[in-house]
């Protein structure tokens, strides 16, 4: 396969950046998208050019590190996968592929396609936990039965990999799907219910402070989310927040 890549190049946070065009050849359908990026970089290095910086680690769709906006969609055209799980068989010979970083005020570009997603960590640090110390003396794990339905829903919310594709795809660069996934997970479990009020208030406050946009329920996030986190979670967080807003002291 022969392709034309249009890649965002930006040498650092203060550089203005621009799209640069790279032709590439001999790409096979069985290659992953990041294998293709590796090939490009090998070529660039040998030619003495600066390779394209992009984030990646596990390359199996679970660490949430990879984060490319490919042809106008977060993680590319395929559904329910991350960039590293995208395979070149989804493209056709001669195609032009735009590759850009996640765009959001809360995700400043570090270099080329690499952005700083620390804002998501800070949201987590403001409430994405159950305040339980490690002791080995908590109650037995089976002491509190949890309905399978709730446990499964909590699990589904908890599969969020923190990639930020939701933010990247949202017209408003809103982080509601990410935040609601954690709020939901913990609100569904008896262990998390205890701090539910403060959690949702604090996490939403931090989310707002970090400069994410407001949700207008476009639903783009859930479509592009590699883990298919559902909009149910946003609705649940809206309920939780309502309760919290009216009852907190």
């Amino acid at each position: 396969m022969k392709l034309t890549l249009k890649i965002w190049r930006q040498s650092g946070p203060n550089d203005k950046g621009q799209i640069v065009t790279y032709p590439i050849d001999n790409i096979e359908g069985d290659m992953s998208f990041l294998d293709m990026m590796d090939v490009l970089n090998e070529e660039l290095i040998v030619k003495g050019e600066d390779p394209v910086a992009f984030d990646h680690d596990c390359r199996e769709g679970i660490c949430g590190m990879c984060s490319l906006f490919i042809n106008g969609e977060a993680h590319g055209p395929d559904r329910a996968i991350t960039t590293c799980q995208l395979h070149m068989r989804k493209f056709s010979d001669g195609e032009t592929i735009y590759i850009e970083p996640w765009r959001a005020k809360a995700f400043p570009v570090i270099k080329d396609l690499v952005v700083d997603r620390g804002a998501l960590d800070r949201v987590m640090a403001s409430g994405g936990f159950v305040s339980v110390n490690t002791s080995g003396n908590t109650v037995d794990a089976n002491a509190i039965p949890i309905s399978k339905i709730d446990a499964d829903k909590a699990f589904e919310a908890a599969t969020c990999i923190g990639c930020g594709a939701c933010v990247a795809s949202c017209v408003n660069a809103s982080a509601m799907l990410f935040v609601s996934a954690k709020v939901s997970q913990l609100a569904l479990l008896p262990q998390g219910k205890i701090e539910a009020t403060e959690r949702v208030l604090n996490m939403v406050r931090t989310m707002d402070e970090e400069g994410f946009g407001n949700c207008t329920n476009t639903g783009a996030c859930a479509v592009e989310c590699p883990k298919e986190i559902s909009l149910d979670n946003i609705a649940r967080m809206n309920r939780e927040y309502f309760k919290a807003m009216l009852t907190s002291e």
Partner: protein
Amino acid sequence: MSILDSKIPSGELNQKWSSYKDHIRLVNPANKRNIDIIVVGTGLAGGSASAALAELGYNVKSFCFQDSPRRAHSIAAQGGINAAKNYQGDGDSVFRLFYDTVKGGDYRAREANVYRLAEVSASIIDQCVAQGVPFAREYGGLLDNRSFGGSQVSRTFYAKGQTGQQLLLGAYSAMSRQIGKGKIQMYNRHEMLDLVLVDGKARGIIARNLVTGSLERFSAHAVVIASGGYGNVFYLSTNAMGSNVSAAWKVHKKGAYFANPCYTQIHPTCIPVSGDHQSKLTLMSESLRNDGRIWVPKNLEDSKAIREGRMKPTDITDENKDFFLERRYPAFGNLVPRDVASRAAKERCDAGFGVNTTGEAVYLDFASAIERYGREKARMNHDGEASIEIIMDLGAEVVKAKYGNLFQMYYKIVDQDPYKTPMMIYPAVHYTMGGVWVDYNLMTTITGCYATGEANFSDHGANRLGASALMQGLADGYFVLPYTIADYLADDIRTGKISTDLPEFVQTENDVKANIERLMNIKGTKTVDYFHKRLGKIMWDKVGMARNAEGLNWAIAEIQKLREEFYSNVRIPGTVDSFNPELDKANRVCDFLELGELMAKDALDREESCGGHFREEHQTEEGEAQRNDDKYAYVAAWEYTGKPSEAILHKEALVFDNIKLVQRSYK
């Protein structure tokens, strides 16, 4: 050869840990505030340690090279975590988990450590549930279990195929809470490049800020290395791209012994290699062997036809399938330990029965499980006369609920639907049992330097059982290190802050800087990956699933040559003081190039087959691994003296008071 002191407490096996805890020294809460601890790594081992230590009141500085602690490779663990809860009432107990783990490790692990691991395993589950980890549950609301290789009880707790993710996010949550409180200073995108020793004690590290490229000094009263495994020495492995040995190797070079480097786990069920450009291999969880049956065609012609695309696996009837694990190991069948399953697959492929275009794959088939579940479901739906199509659909739903994400992963990579056609799998490097030598306290041979999780060598002997690494990482971090480190830090309550202006810090930083500059100045013609791939090939061919003296000697010579070539011809673009992933890789590969040689040397030295280490010279007539307990029942701990080839071997004799050593049999 010196004798290593493993500091195992005296007393009965089942009393050691509790009496140890009762007698160690503690640090009072006010003093903990004056003590800094560096934790390198935020995986299960490092993340849990950071959280637990910060909760206790220590000031923790945590490091990871990714952009967030949540991305450590523990996130990728799929299948589950063991714990001796005996919730299923199937006869499990602390002793049985201990026994299975030692046996699974082919009797090359330290009894006392493994027993402690089994003892604290139950607390891990309690702790994780309290944190909100959504483990799989049954309809009654209680926790569900599945079985894993190498045991005959169901003791594995899981969260679909994402157990590692859920556990890591639990630890990350606990860390986040402490980060929010300021008790953990989190240094993301920081890579430890050296350990700083002051008066022979570990007192800090030099780390490179991967965003700005600057070298930074960090001091502490103790340093914990929890940097994961070194499987990436093989280039292709199920590890993450960034997984590396550097932190462990740097402490090794500073005086920590490196134990059993040759013990590598090759996991039997990974998606086979597809092409030259592949950068990474993907695991298909061992839990799949609960329901999948492994086979190759019985007839060579059929295998050939499949390889050439003239035949499909679904064309072959059960009579013409060789379910080789069930055939060779009737007692454990598809659930034999990993090393055994991997070698059996390799044996079939070497004999020409392999499938896939490369001939390097076997089938993992769910058809009969899908049918079985489908029939069960149909019966529950009172649909006794359901057609086979309906039954298969119902069954597929059940399988989807159990392994949906794995099947999806497979589908996306291979572009074949595993609900309809068997998966192709092949062994791949997955885990490294070897690592930094530690004593019972998890302290390395450097005072004040600890190693936990996959980075240490401690609990899995020559082969790790499935679902035991997660258990070990969390046991180390949540329940062991917080006690053992206090005993050491009790001496440091009056030390005060350690200055990073000490000459030792300056010197170490200069050394690191010199090394980086040396690499940057080579300005050769080949990329870092080029060397890494070549190293990987040498390792896989000669230090992989089957090893022999000749191959190992060859590998040692080749690696030495490759290392020289690397230092004369590698090309690293960009600058030192900027975001430069190629430089990061180069820093890692230079350590792999030394480690690889030590692995071969260790493999050469160990004239027996045990667990993941299979020496072709030492096998039974049936091709099973043959241990030599008289000569090799020891931990090989290597001391660095300047070159891997000149490393000095120290032996820690393994004493088994509670378990009788027998030839492992899963027949």
